[in-house]
């Protein structure tokens, strides 16, 4: 699992682009033996900067595999940013970066 993230500020607006490694299984796909693959998907994505929650996303199984997420908030170059996710199996991942 990994999260690739880029956060850059321009004119007081921070643009965040993140790519998360995750299968995002819907629960309706079958494996090579014909058995249903259980649902496995990110449910919650949380973005925090300088002690504030700037964005919370709730996702269904219909977000594509290896999810891409872009959002923006008012901030400055040098601000800290943490992005984390949790999935329906209780697994999680997070990344911290500095706004460029």
């Amino acid at each position, binding site marked *: 699992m990994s999260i690739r993230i880029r956060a850059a500020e321009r004119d007081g607006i921070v643009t965040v682009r993140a790519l998360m490694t995750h299968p995002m299984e819907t629960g309706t796909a079958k494996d090579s033996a014909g058995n249903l693959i259980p649902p496995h998907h990110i449910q919650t994505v949380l973005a925090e900067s*300088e002690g*504030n929650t700037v964005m919370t996303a709730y996702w269904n199984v*219909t977000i*594509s595999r290896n999810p891409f997420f872009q*959002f*923006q908030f008012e901030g400055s170059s040098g601000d800290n940013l943490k992005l984390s996710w949790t999935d329906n199996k209780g697994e999680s991942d997070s990344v911290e970066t500095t706004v460029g």
Partner: protein
Amino acid sequence: MTSNKRRVFLKGSLAAGTVGVAVGAGLLAPSKLLAAFPADVFETRGYEDALEAALGTTEMEEGDIEITAPEIAENGMVVPVTVETGMSDVSEMALFVVENGSPLTSKYILGAGAVPMFATRIKMGESSDVVATVKSNGSWYKASREVKVTIGGCGG
């Protein structure tokens, strides 16, 4: 009052140690602050029922909402969608695919200083209207856009 809070805080931080310090400094998310994932809302089938479950309403005016998505998606497994709005005081946004079995793809809670926009990639089972909804000044507004999905097509 004050001493009670302090007692609770101390009690909580005894075991937490450096984690407690990190939470206090805003470096970590206390998971208690995360609202529970509304699984039943996401499993709701049928567009009207999904609207009602996710937004509490099905009656919405058209809003100043821009949806950027391909007219023809070559691959229904990966359809890029961007939603942005010039509406004021936006607190939440959501994205639906009318013809998907469970139409609600995602819901967004905007925090301090968030710009009312998001971009992601979604799965579409077939050609469908994509509906973006925005909660502005406490009321939900919508916009929609048709996306044709060519299963195994060449994008022509």
